[in-house]
């Protein structure tokens, strides 16, 4: 009983310990040699928090490592305000999870590196901002754990990370047309966001009517502001698979621009004229 009380007391006295969210870099690769490729993953453990926004900077030694690829197809982040990008020895990104993420092992991004030289490579998280899903954007206390990897010796047959062949196209998605007085001078624009859990989205293309398709990002100002033509949006993943979605004309064409309607109307008018004339002659 005394032990229970002691344990109970200890838990009550220090319930806040270990509550800070935690971001970690980890790799399953061991015995890395010069020339080998290996993957480093960035994970979020929210502990008792519910996090809905994340911003971070990762730094790596350029003299020892070459960044080959950044993968985010399986990320918990739904929308990137700054998609993962590399600048010198820094990898930066920021994005949000609507509704928040509360879990222990949330994959944010992963990076494929190639070892260039022998030595201890320290990959560090130099900046981290995690915001709570509380409607105020309150900053959550966060701890970071970087990664140190020893590269020793020259690889005789360097390991390359062969990706499983992705033959699936991006998932179905629904583009939307909108306008807002604060963006693009109140012009109509198109928004879309497709998911590809295999290789990840590479780019989008928008084709308006008979116009040439335009390679674009997920926010696109429409060339045809009359919205009277079909819009085709293609989402293409990094393996070249594509998902095509067509948006019908947002407005009914004016009757005089549609030859079918015009023909029907002229035909009906002609038929009515003939009938009326025959009736008139009989009288």
């Amino acid at each position: 009983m005394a032990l229970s009380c002691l344990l109970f007391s200890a838990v009550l006295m220090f319930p806040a310990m270990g509550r800070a969210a935690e971001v970690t870099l980890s790799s399953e690769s061991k015995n890395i040699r010069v020339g080998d490729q290996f993957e480093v993953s960035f994970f979020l453990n929210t502990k008792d928090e519910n996090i809905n926004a994340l911003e971070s900077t990762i730094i790596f030694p350029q003299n020892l490592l070459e960044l080959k690829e950044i993968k985010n197809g399986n990320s918990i982040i739904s929308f990137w305000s700054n998609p993962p990008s590399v600048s010198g020895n820094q990898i930066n990104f920021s994005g949000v999870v609507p509704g928040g993420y509360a879990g222990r092992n949330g994959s944010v991004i992963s990076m494929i590196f190639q070892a260039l030289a022998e030595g201890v490579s320290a990959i560090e998280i130099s900046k981290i901002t995690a915001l709570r899903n509380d409607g105020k954007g309150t900053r959550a206390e966060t701890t970071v754990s970087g990664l140190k990897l020893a590269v020793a010796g020259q690889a005789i047959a360097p390991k390359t990370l062969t990706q499983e062949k992705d033959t699936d196209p991006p998932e179905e998605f629904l583009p939307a047309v909108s306008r807002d007085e604060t963006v693009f001078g109140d012009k109509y624009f198109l928004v879309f966001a497709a998911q590809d859990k295999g290789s990840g989205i590479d780019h989008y293309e928008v084709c308006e009517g008979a116009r040439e398709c335009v390679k674009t990002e997920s926010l696109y100002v429409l060339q045809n502001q009359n919205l009277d033509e079909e819009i085709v949006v293609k989402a293409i993943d990094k393996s070249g698979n594509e998902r095509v979605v067509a948006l019908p004309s947002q407005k009914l064409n004016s009757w005089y621009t549609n030859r079918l309607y015009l023909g029907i109307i002229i035909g009906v008018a002609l038929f009515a004229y003939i009938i009326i004339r025959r009736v008139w002659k009989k009288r």
Partner: protein
Amino acid sequence: MVKKQLLLVLVLFGSLIATVVLAQEFSSSNFVNSNPVVTMGGGKATSTNFQLFSGLSQVVIGESSSSAFASYAGFFYFPFVSTPVISATAGDGQASLSWTSAVGELGYNISAYAVGKSTNSGGPYSFTNVGNTLTNTATGLTNGTLYYFVVRGLDFLGDSVVTSSEVSVTPVSSGSVTPPIGGGGTPLPVPGTKVIFSGLAYPNAKITLLKDAQLAATTIANANASFQITVSGLSGGTYIFSIYGEDNKGVRSPLLNFPIDTTINAVSTVNGVLIPPTISVDKSEVKKGDDIIIFGQSVPRAEVTIAVSSEKEFFVKTFSGNDGNYFYNFDTTPLSLGQHFAKSKFDFNGQISAFGKLVDFLVGTKNIEAEPTPTCPIGADLNKDCRVNLIDVSILIYWFDKSNPPAKVDFDGSGKTDLVDLSIMAYYWTG
């Protein structure tokens, strides 16, 4: 002798400075704690139908905290842990299990989880302590056999304090979808990759399911508030699914998020999704000492706990009716003047939801009737279509880190559109 004198002096001195402890009774439907006295040591007492917690330090009930610790002293009236939501995905001779965190209140925390397995619905289950983790893979299963799993939250003493709903899964051989060799039979149908959610919301509530923050499916709960909703056409990978409900007044619940790792051509099931009650108040300002009506909708015939924040937190209980509606006349006498918040959760046959959204009110010198709870997410809905979705976030991201953004994309008035504004929008997300 000296010791006895010293003890006497201490007792006399203590009696001079002792604080009067009010022996307020705490009761529930099956126990009464009469003339309670807060002990100077922590403890836990249990019988077959009640548990009593007491804590050390202060001789009055309250919460003390600093940057490094928090102490919850006194009786832990209405301590609770929300029920974890379990999901299962079939594998070859195995099942991948994951569950949401069981969230405790008043310092009542979960230290570990135990996974229960059975081949009979309702058990008995054989439990395995898997530690303080939210995932587990049950291996050594027989393909084609239906298994039932639950997860229990364990407190620091190893006692079970909450149990999830049951989820079922049938492991399948990875080669079971190929046609039989030489038999001329038809191949078994490929199930496709899908996730099935089921749970409780409000009677006839509209349930919306989002996949990676975008609309995936909607359904209507039945009169008992039960719902089931399926999303298919998925790939194998990590998805964040979100579910919310709208009550009979169009008021939305908070988003409940479920990160699920799907497997190609496997069905994942998520049982026991408990959508928290909606909540509103009848006054935006209430005269101190007058009642304020706290109301909303929940699962029918559920016990609804309402928490009202003040210098300390007040907990009161009521029951929802057959239509799921609940209300409580809260006497504001013990509340201090100023802003207060209320939130609610339900307990239905031992299934305990998390707390829902906060509603705020002012305790002041007069009564002001509250406006109806807005059904549209005010502020974050930039294009005023009553939804916060891809269009709104695209407009916000357009202004991200640009100078002189319009006021409507600068929610916190910081003079710039940044991650904080995105976080605020993400909170109000509807998809």
